[in-house]
């Protein structure tokens, strides 16, 4: 399996552990990720909040690079770990089905984007999340077959965040209110998935810098819920969710008056552990809240 790969800016900075573990896991599974040469920022929320056209053009430059790279290498799909990049890249392509819009986007670019076929087929590629490709294309049974260290004894709250499956007509993945793909993945790794009703509740997104009061309050709700449902840790698929729940956990604690010690891991890090990869391949030391104590529970059946 070979995918063109768009890491996104945070993968080279604040979510470097997501990036490292994604690459390690894919390589262990025999999935080849071909990073787009000279990719640029998709503009994230600041671009789409500023203007749809600007946002689409920033994404379109990358979609063009991907189309070219895929033609050369034979990679079948374009993948990204980051839900915010995913939403922007998908939204741009969705809007570009409209010819008038596309003409405007082309005017902002050095050279026009490759066309989008009448049924939405290539060469302008659709983007998929790493989660979706692992669950749907690689397949859960195939992942389960490679597990050497089942996460037995570990209770995990699966937190998807708000972007992965919404808005549904554009994201076209899982259920917008009650997604289950990560639940099933974690189960395939041997973990126990706790019921987590706030799966898609917002963590406060990028409000952390300008309005930390909002982010702290929303993240505290998530940490409270995970605690209430007896989770040993939270699994996430989004760099922003991770930053708000892990790095900003103390800020959330100040807002709610409760202290937390809740490790928050990327699902790819958990996959890596289950696949028996060494810690150094999973960058566990980059996490703010240490998962060491929680990970001790793996393999120890606790009789209550």
């Amino acid at each position, binding site marked *: 399996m070979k995918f063109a790969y768009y890491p996104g*800016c945070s993968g*080279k*900075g*604040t979510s*470097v552990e997501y990036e490292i573990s994604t690459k390690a896991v894919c390589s262990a599974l025999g999935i080849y990720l071909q990073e787009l040469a*000279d*990719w*640029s*920022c998709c*503009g*994230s*929320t*600041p*671009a*789409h*909040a*500023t*203007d*749809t*056209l*600007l946002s689409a*053009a*920033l994404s379109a*430059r990358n979609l063009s690079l991907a189309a070219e790279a895929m033609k050369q290498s034979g990679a079948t799909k374009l993948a990204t770990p980051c839900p915010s990049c995913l939403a922007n890249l998908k939204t741009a392509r969705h809007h570009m089905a409209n010819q008038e819009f596309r003409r*405007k986007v082309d*005017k*902002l*670019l*050095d050279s026009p984007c490759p066309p989008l076929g009448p049924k939405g087929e290539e060469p302008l590629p659709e983007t998929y999340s790493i989660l979706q490709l692992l669950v749907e294309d690689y397949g859960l049974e195939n992942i389960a077959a490679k597990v050497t260290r089942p996460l037995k004894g570990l209770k995990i709250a699966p937190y998807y965040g*708000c*972007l992965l499956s*919404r*808005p*549904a*007509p554009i994201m076209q993945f899982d259920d*917008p*209110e009650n997604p289950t793909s990560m639940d099933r993945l974690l189960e395939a790794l041997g973990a126990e998935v706790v019921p987590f009703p706030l799966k*898609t*509740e*917002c963590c*406060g*997104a*990028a*409000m*952390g*810098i*300008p*309005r*930390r*009061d*909002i982010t702290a*309050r*929303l993240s505290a709700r998530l940490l409270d819920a995970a605690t209430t449902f007896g989770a040993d840790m939270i699994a996430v698929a989004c760099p922003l969710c991770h930053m708000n729940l892990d*790095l*900003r956990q*103390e*800020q959330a604690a100040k807002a709610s008056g409760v202290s937390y010690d809740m490790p928050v891991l990327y699902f790819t890090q958990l996959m890596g552990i289950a696949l028996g990869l060494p810690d150094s391949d999973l960058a566990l*030391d*980059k996490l*703010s809240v240490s998962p060491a104590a929680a990970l001790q529970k793996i393999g120890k059946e606790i009789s209550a």
Partner: protein
Amino acid sequence: MDSINLRARDEAFIREVEKESGQNISTCYQCGNCTAGCPCGPVYDLQVNQIMRAIQLGDKKTVLEAASPWLCVSCSTCSARCPNDIDVARVMDTVRHIGRREGKTKYVINAFWDSFLQTVRFCGRSYELGIMALFMLRTGRFYTDLDLAPRMLPKKKMPYLPHLIRGKAAVSRIFKRFNDMQQYDD
């Protein structure tokens, strides 16, 4: 005179929002589902269903004066729960676009977004330390996230230098053309 005109139904505004968002605003029947699920409701001055209503009424002033669109985190919960399949989050996005064009960008979030985009414009990729520095300069909030430094720095997660890509000039040109295009439109 003003007080009468303020409430006049601004049809052009309704059409502008509908066209740019691609949503049919008139189908909103004010059920309040969007507001019920909105995580930012507690900090909004106008709830998201009220924004929808004000747009239906063509009450441009009320919509553009509201702080809510600038506090919205684009989580799309409203869109997921609207029984009439209105992409409400997209409408909020559209209100921001119109607000920006009309110079309503006085909020803290605007300083953050502008700082972010400025680093993309010059480096081709976003540059976290640069965003923080620009944001602090714009807002004077020099204490922003200082409490995170002891957690963050030992992890070496924030590169000190930006990732300058070969195509940074190409990205810069996207911004330049976009700005030029806007000036023609105005």
